[in-house]
């Protein structure tokens, strides 16, 4: 029997018992759809995050902290409390992260050390900015703002990015701030002055002015607040630090350092190793992204497991369907063997049937998942995802689709081996005597 005949014979045998075949295909369909959807979400979010990296900060920037050897405060962990070090200043976190987590404080000596490392072009302390409010034409609102480092290209809906070389106080604001500040659209707020109120350490409140240069789109990461240029950030920090003793106002947890943008990955690795040797931990935007991706991958793998379990159940469906088919077609198999069909061809015939179940199940599953993706993306971009411009929640690259289809066909083939071997071993005499 030649290959086309094997395919057409397998196909016609399969669709002879339509209901049984259809049910088995549905089982595969569910598994294929689940895996495609979970991977589609993963790919969609990852490609969106990749686009957002530009908004998060320049890629030639390192976030540097002192390496924390004992991560948690006294009484936790297996190592016991760390010995006292009079040279080390410690801030205990009570808010973000695990309670009692220590953050080591850095000072200007650390900045000098960092600057002495080859390939570091600049190092500036990161001061947390905590203004009291912002006010546009009317009403006071809370303001979340951070300094913009490097040559960041935030995804702007209107206007331009801030200029760190400028003496003028500049800021870019998220689109959601526009109406609170009393402006009707993104264009109308450009170039306008915003009043920022700041409380100093002595409890006295004062105000400064800043010009809005751009409106950014809402981003999934990083873009939840406004960005200030160096001039504005410095001024906010100076005002809010009035009254603080220098030991506190001059200490910080994070240093933002830049390196030449043309460094290779090996050179960047050398740089972080050098930092590590000097007691610092440096992370690039890429590293931070990888941390997010690692978490995302874990979630996707867990979701994929559901699909895999569905496929595992479905492969038993294939075994069952084909075993029934072999039993029912005992005479047919016997006849074909009597008329000279080799056991190998009988095996191939039943394997093709198994692979076909896998093929149709996965093709339909993938197609349906793509359809769901299209609908969700369309609805999402006008509804619950409209704040995330450029996010296709579900993305299906051809390579993933092919991998799913081929993978499932392989699983189906493996599931089909048991029935196929059983069919190929049928004794034609027994089979033809069988009533």
């Amino acid at each position, binding site marked *: *029997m030649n290959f086309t*005949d094997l395919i057409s014979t397998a196909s*016609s045998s399969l669709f002879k018992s339509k209901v049984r075949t259809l049910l088995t295909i549905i089982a595969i369909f569910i598994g294929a759809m689940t895996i495609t959807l979970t991977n589609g979400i993963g790919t969609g979010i990852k490609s969106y995050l990749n686009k957002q990296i530009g908004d998060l900060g320049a890629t030639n920037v390192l976030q540097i902290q002192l390496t924390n050897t004992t991560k948690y405060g006294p009484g936790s962990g297996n190592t016991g409390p760390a010995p006292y070090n009079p040279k080390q200043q410690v801030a205990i976190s009570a808010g973000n992260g695990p309670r009692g987590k220590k953050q080591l404080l850095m000072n200007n000596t650390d900045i000098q050390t960092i600057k002495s490392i080859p390939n570091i072009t600049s190092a500036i302390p990161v001061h947390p900015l905590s203004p009291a409010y912002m006010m546009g034409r009317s009403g006071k609102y809370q303001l979340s703002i951070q300094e913009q480092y490097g040559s960041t290209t935030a995804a702007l809906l209107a206007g331009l990015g801030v200029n760190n070389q400028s003496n003028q106080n500049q800021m870019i604001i998220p689109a959601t701030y526009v109406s609170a500040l009393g402006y009707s659209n993104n264009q109308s707020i450009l170039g306008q002055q915003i009043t920022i109120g700041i409380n100093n350490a002595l409890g006295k409140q004062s105000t400064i002015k800043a010009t809005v240069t751009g409106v950014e789109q809402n981003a999934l990461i990083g873009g939840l607040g406004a960005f200030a240029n160096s001039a504005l950030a410095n001024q906010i920090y100076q005002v809010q630090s009035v009254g603080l003793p220098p030991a506190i106002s001059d200490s910080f947890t994070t240093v933002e350092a830049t390196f030449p943008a043309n460094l290779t990955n090996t050179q960047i690795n050398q740089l972080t190793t050098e930092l590590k040797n000097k007691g610092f931990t440096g992370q690039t935007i890429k590293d931070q992204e990888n941390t997010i991706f690692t978490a995302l991958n874990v979630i996707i793998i867990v979701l994929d497991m559901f699909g895999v379990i569905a496929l595992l159940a479905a492969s038993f469906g294939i075994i069952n369907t084909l075993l029934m088919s072999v039993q029912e077609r005992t*005479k047919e198999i016997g006849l*074909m063997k*009597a*008329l*000279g*069909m*080799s056991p190998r061809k009988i095996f191939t015939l039943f394997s093709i049937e198994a692979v076909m179940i896998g093929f149709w199940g996965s093709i339909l599953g993938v197609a349906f998942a793509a359809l769901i993706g299209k609908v969700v993306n369309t609805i999402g971009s006008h509804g619950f995802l409209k704040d995330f411009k450029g996010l296709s929640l579900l993305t299906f690259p051809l390579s993933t689709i092919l991998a799913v289809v081929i993978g499932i066909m392989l699983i189906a083939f493996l599931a089909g081996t048991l029935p196929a071997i059983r069919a190929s071993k049928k004794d034609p005499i027994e089979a033809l005597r069988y009533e």
Partner: protein
Amino acid sequence: MNDQSVIESRQVTKKYGKGESEFTALDNINLVIKKGESVAIVGKSGSGKSTLMHVLALLDQPTQGSVIIEGANASSFNSRSLDVMRNKKFGFVFQQFFLNGNDTVLNNVILPLKIAGISRKKRNILGMQSLEQVELTNKAKSKAVELSGGQKQRVCIARALINQPSIIFADEPTGNLDSQTGKAVEDLLFRLNKEQGITLILVTHDIEIANRCDREIHIVDGKLTNESSK
């Protein structure tokens, strides 16, 4: 009729089981069947006549002895060659027809050619020629399940003929048919035997049909008894 042997069994013994439960189905069978002969293997059920046919048709291997097909010893063949031999040289007609009911008559007839890997076009032409010989060309597109018993057996004969076999093995070909249609099927088989010189090996317990053969081989408890030749 020439005297060339088409199939021979030499001291063929077939045993089933081991030890206490050992059962001898065929006991030292020596047999020569000549080209173009019609031979009836006659015996009661359980006599070993079906086993003999299976051994001669290379569906089963003898425990001892050998089967010679057109001068070649079948025990020296590998399983692939046995498959090819059955596919090219033999035609089979069974009591229970073994047709695929949901498939068309033509597709049932061309099955041996499909197994042999012959192209669709060629096998359909040969299939129609084969159906012509059993006068069923008008049923080519019908489903096999729609046919009467006699028609079904004629389809089986057409299937057996399609590879232009040197031997047709017919196992109780009229067993499931009433006497009138049975007679028609018999006539067809003997006509093919006479006109085309196809060797006919008939397994039957029906004395009347056995009498029409050139030779009757009687088998009792796995042994050949009186061989009657006309």
